């Protein structure tokens, strides 16, 4: 009656992996946009904005994602705000992502030599174009390796969505382990799938890093 871990079970894991990918993309796009805003706030010339974004980063970097998700999904309803799973996941993962990316990108923006934005100012170029045309393209290249390694962590971090009942990769693995009672095989397969999702990214990151080093 107990199932053996075989091909069908592996396909079930792959189905879970689909959600892992969807969740990661979601978190990355929404969180990335928010993270850019946070990074710009952290480097703005207004002290208040800098303080607010600094506090934001502190809180969302300083607590485990698990607890953030728990609060958005189970906590907000207590305030009378009932949230859908996907809304909750989007909010929770985006808060988490934006705090980390905000901090990474703040660093990259500040790593662009001051002379660059001074030269743009001296040419009369305003804030928006100074950022879009001069600073961000350079910051982007500086921050890319760190961004990708965060993305890899994010992909693995989406496993926590299981708390909200979403059967993504890790949760599929748990379910399979509880059906087949062969946890080592199941989790080995889970690790393999994560590896296949993540490795292209780390490979890209290494290549980009090499190219940047060569350009110097």
């Amino acid at each position, binding site marked *: 009656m107990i199932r053996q871990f075989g091909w069908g079970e592996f396909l079930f894991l792959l189905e879970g992996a689909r959600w892992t990918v969807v969740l990661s993309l979601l978190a990355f796009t929404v969180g990335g946009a928010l993270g850019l805003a946070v990074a710009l706030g952290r480097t703005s010339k207004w002290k208040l904005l800098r303080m607010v974004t600094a506090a934001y980063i502190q809180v969302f970097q300083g607590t485990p994602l698990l607890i953030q998700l728990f609060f958005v999904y189970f906590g907000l309803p207590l305030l009378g705000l009932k949230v859908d799973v996907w809304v909750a996941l989007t909010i929770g993962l985006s808060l988490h992502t934006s705090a980390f990316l905000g901090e990474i990108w703040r660093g990259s923006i500040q790593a662009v030599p001051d002379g660059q934005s001074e030269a743009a100012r001296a040419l009369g170029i305003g804030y928006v174009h100074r950022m879009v045309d001069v600073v961000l393209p350079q910051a982007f290249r500086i921050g890319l390796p760190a961004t990708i390694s965060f993305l890899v962590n994010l992909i693995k971090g989406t496993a926590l969505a299981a708390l*909200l009942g979403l059967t993504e990769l890790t949760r599929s693995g748990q379910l*399979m382990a509880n059906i087949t009672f062969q946890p080592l095989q199941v989790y080995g397969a889970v690790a393999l799938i994560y590896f296949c999702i993540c490795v292209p990214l780390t490979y890209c990151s290494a290549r980009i890093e090499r190219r940047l080093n060569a350009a110097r």
Partner: protein
Amino acid sequence: VTPEEIKAKGTATIGVQMDQFPWGFIDQNGQNDGFDIEIAKLITKELGVDVKFERITGQNRIPLLVNGNVDFLVPSMTITEERAKVIQYVIPYSSNDITVWGKNDAEIQGNDDLGNYVIGVNRGSAFDPLLVKVAPANTQIKRFDDDATTVQALLSGQVDAILGSVTYGLVINQTGNGDTFERKYKVADNFQGMAVRKGDQEMLDFLNDFVARHTEDGVLDELYKKWIGSDRAKLPTTLPGVDFTGKE
């Protein structure tokens, strides 16, 4: 919610646990299957609505119910006094003897012997507080996330014995370890109940009636025999400290 509201919606959202072989699990085709699933389907059939399963875990099932994400639970969840303070139980629909399994050479005959060994248990299940209650204070307890890891801890020798469901035996035998490990003793009865939100009186009445009727006509006995492989015990309709009427 009330049964009428569910009928109006056309779908019942039911929380079921899918990591509890053979109570609830995912079959070869990726479909939900098991004892609980069949019962849940039976309920929706009587309501004349579609069923939507929400896969719950030991950790999130109570918040999910309390917050209204699911209409009610058909979990393999033990009825305990503590939980009854937070959610409303329906009268028991199945039972699952709580059993200690251990290495052949572990000398465990009763609760008092547990103190000499390292005992594993599924955290978040009802087995955990029970173990704390019955075992001597000096017992070394190791807690794991789910049944699979708990059993695995026994099989890999990380613990000497585990306390949990009688169905662990199925697993131990089928993974080819029946020679090394054995059933030690039955710790307690374990009555399992569906649950609704506190205050959902009509829903409670409907489900109480459902369980009573199908105990009467033998449908539940049949399902139990089919999935668990033994006869369903005679189940009580009252338990000390737990209110099944929603009136108290």
